[in-house]
């Protein structure tokens, strides 16, 4: 029987961004990315799912208070009320599309959490779009 349990915590952060490719000038970026080449912003919602077996004593897969602090440190402080292009090092060579931002967040959290604990993340840039990233 699969006794694996998944627990999810959500956070929100607000960032500005523009899609830009380092090899392209402003006109070429606009042609490739359209309106997303202009600086704009999103209220991102991030759902972080951890996996494991509930600890026999605490009944927890992970202490959500610890997870809250970790998400504050690793995600909110890095991205909230920041410009993804100018205030973070991740988007000098790739545009901060939902896919690329989700991939960056997955890698940050996978490195920050105990090995094997991160199951998946779901990043919502708006109400009509979300990206799931999981191992494999």
């Amino acid at each position: 029987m699969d006794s694996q349990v998944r627990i999810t915590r959500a956070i929100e952060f607000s960032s500005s961004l523009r899609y830009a490719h380092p090899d392209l000038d402003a006109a070429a970026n606009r042609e490739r990315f359209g309106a997303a080449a202009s600086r704009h912003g999103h209220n991102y919602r991030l759902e972080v799912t951890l996996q494991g077996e509930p600890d026999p004593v605490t009944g927890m897969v992970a202490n959500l208070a610890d997870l809250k602090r970790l998400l504050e440190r690793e995600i909110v402080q890095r991205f909230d009320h920041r410009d993804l292009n100018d205030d973070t090092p991740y988007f000098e060579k790739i545009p901060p599309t939902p896919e690329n931002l989700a991939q960056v967040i997955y890698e940050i959290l996978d490195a920050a959490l105990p090995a094997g604990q991160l199951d998946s993340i779901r990043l919502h840039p708006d109400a009509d779009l979300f990206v799931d990233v999981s191992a494999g």
Partner: protein
Amino acid sequence: MIAVTKRYGFPAAHVLASRELSPEENEAIFGPCANPNGHGHNYGVEVTVTGPIDPDSGQVVPEATLDEIYQAAVAEPFSHRLLNDLEDFATRVPTAENIAVAIHGRLASAVRRSTRARLLRVRIVETPRNSCVVGEVK
């Protein structure tokens, strides 16, 4: 693995009744949904694709491309229609399940034709309380 889901939707009418059953049998199985004059829903359609991130667009499928695929494969044939009139439902009752199967089939071939990604799943949200998924859930 990375999967991108976009929510779309269309309003449509349907009648839940099988041509192989009598009006009484349809009424017994489908209840008010068998009303021969029809009823309708704002169907939500959640389309999930998976594949490598294209280095040029930074996306699995450029959003405009996915919008065009949805428009041609789903919105065009299904929006503002009585679903029972469509070829997809000539021999099937247009339940949420059969609508999901039909839309999954249309989108899977369109995504295969027009992108390097593949369709992972389609979720049909018939009402805030009813939904149906076809494809891989994870």
